[in-house]
């Protein structure tokens, strides 16, 4: 412990961000950096992360992974009633709710907590209002480390989303200390201060080992498909928020040899709701898997709580679609009524998009929904819709296209109205490049930087050139 008394003032703590992060994560990111925009992503993943076999071993020690994959025959049947003849792909789901903490996040937490323990940290801290908190708490309990979870939880009246309150309870059930905060980006300040004061490990969602933890998911589902159905799936659909689910799953598919499988990302459309607004906070019925995370994390991945985010969703998405809150509630209900599976609701975002996308696919084609999550008090359509009503959100039947996040939840009048609305990935790619280049306006970057931007965004070269001109940047 340092004997120098450090100031805990907001600006002072933020100015110590780099040193706090370095000691809390045990990775020297500078060895992968070029000094400008580029960094060696693959080298970071192989040197700072773990190999697939190692991850499988780590996860199996704590009962994580090897979840079942099953066919949703009735939902497939229903989708086929709205498809043209010969169409209506087979919908399969990987039941990730079977992981110890009830979601795929156990895969990320298993590796993060293992790594923390290996490096000799006494405890772990994670900033998350989602399933990841329970996953880290569960793993910390198994591996004998202390655990603090930092949540954005309440509005300033101490009114909390039932979904987040349930996640708080789950964390406490696994023995974690839960820090609950009101709305605002200053969560990061509290998080940094906690890391500094405790000396615990930053079990960020976005480290190389966290992301590598998800690779087993893609790897397993590819092999399960091949073994039981004789081929890799034509498409895999992934609920997208911070980008780790898309990144890890896609990398795992590649490692399994499923290189022709198309990766589709899906988010709930919360357009118009400001994520840092105290009044808008309790107007949304989804606290993750939504566009409020999905778009910023795709277009500015390094906004995360680590210097270089190992989740790079634009590298891996072949398509990005959005669905409406009312549609996800409808499909969550359908999963229970038609398939006898009570899961979600947030984890059913990709399932909702799958219901629409299956109708575009041929009958012999396979579409895998790669996750489910546990459900329970608070985290349930009834709890969520009750809370929405109490907060003045109108719940009606109608055309989901007319849903306005924060004002209405529109349940489709017929499941035929459920749509996967394409988000223009070229727009996202352009926005990513602009965000990366803006700090270099009127300056010089390298050819390596340009190549990095192309690899990281999968944009056309012309897009990069246009933005270089617009921002008066030269390349040496």
């Amino acid at each position, binding site marked *: 412990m340092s004997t120098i008394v450090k100031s805990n003032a907001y600006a002072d703590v933020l100015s110590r961000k780099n040193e706090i992060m370095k000691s809390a994560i045990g990775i020297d990111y500078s060895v992968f950096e070029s000094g400008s925009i580029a960094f060696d992503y693959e080298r970071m993943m192989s040197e700072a992360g773990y190999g697939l076999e190692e991850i499988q071993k780590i996860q199996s020690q704590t009962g994580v992974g090897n979840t079942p994959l099953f066919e949703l025959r009735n939902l497939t049947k229903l989708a086929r009633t709205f498809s043209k003849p010969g169409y209506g792909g087979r919908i399969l789901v990987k039941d990730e709710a079977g992981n110890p903490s009830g979601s795929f996040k156990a895969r990320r937490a298993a590796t993060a907590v293992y790594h923390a323990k290996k490096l000799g940290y006494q405890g772990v801290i994670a900033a998350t209002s989602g399933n990841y908190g329970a996953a880290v708490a569960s793993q910390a309990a198994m591996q004998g480390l202390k655990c603090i979870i930092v949540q954005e939880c309440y509005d300033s009246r101490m009114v909390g989303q039932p979904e987040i309150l349930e996640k708080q309870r789950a964390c406490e059930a696994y023995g974690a200390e839960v820090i609950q905060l009101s709305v605002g980006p200053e969560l990061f300040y509290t998080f940094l201060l906690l890391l500094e004061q405790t000396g615990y490990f930053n079990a960020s969602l976005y480290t190389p080992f966290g992301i590598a933890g998800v690779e087993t998911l893609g790897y397993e589902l590819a092999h399960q498909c091949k073994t039981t159905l004789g081929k890799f799936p034509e498409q895999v659909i992934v609920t997208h928020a911070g980008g780790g689910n898309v990144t890890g799953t896609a990398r795992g598919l590649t490692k399994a040899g499923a290189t022709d499988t198309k990766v589709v990302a899906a988010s709930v459309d919360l357009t118009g709701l400001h994520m840092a607004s105290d009044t808008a906070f309790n107007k949304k019925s989804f606290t993750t898997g939504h566009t409020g995370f999905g778009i910023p994390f795709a277009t500015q991945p390094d906004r995360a709580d680590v210097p270089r985010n190992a989740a790079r969703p634009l590298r891996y998405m072949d398509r990005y679609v959005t669905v409406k809150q009312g549609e996800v509630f409808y499909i969550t209900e359908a999963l229970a009524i038609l398939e006898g599976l009570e899961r979600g609701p947030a984890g059913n975002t990709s399932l909702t998009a799958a219901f629409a996308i299956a109708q575009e696919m041929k009958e012999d084609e396979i579409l895998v929904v790669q996750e489910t999550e546990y459900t329970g008090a608070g985290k349930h*359509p009834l709890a969520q819709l009750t809370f929405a009503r109490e907060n003045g959100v109108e719940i009606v039947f109608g055309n989901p296209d007319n849903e306005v996040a924060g004002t209405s939840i529109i349940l489709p009048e017929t499941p035929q109205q459920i749509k996967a609305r394409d988000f223009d990935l070229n727009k996202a790619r352009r926005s990513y490049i602009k965000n990366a280049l803006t700090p270099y306006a009127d300056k010089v970057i390298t050819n390596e930087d340009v190549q990095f931007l192309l690899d990281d965004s999968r944009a056309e070269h012309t897009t990069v050139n246009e933005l270089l001109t617009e921002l008066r940047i030269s390349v040496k």
Partner: protein
Amino acid sequence: MKTHAAIGDWVQIKQVVLPVGERAPQVPEDTKNTPFLLWVKGFAQQEANIGETMHIQTVTGRALEGELVAVEPGYTYGFGNCVPELLAVDNQLRELMRGEQ
């Protein structure tokens, strides 16, 4: 709800992390007009009434101080009310599938 905490009771405290006027520059106006608050639970290290200062020890062993807001706090959220619209969805799904069996 209990309003008095004895030493050793499981309690919840509140801290004002950043008062109004010290919020981060990028927060929207409605948020800027509210303080940035923190709640945490632990074991009471002294006696106190709701609204008074309380010292706690958290489950990770940290010593913290704040305003006592709850004694033996529980979990009060649940599965919510009946939502008739979801029952209508169920009926519709059963009806649609009837033709498919």
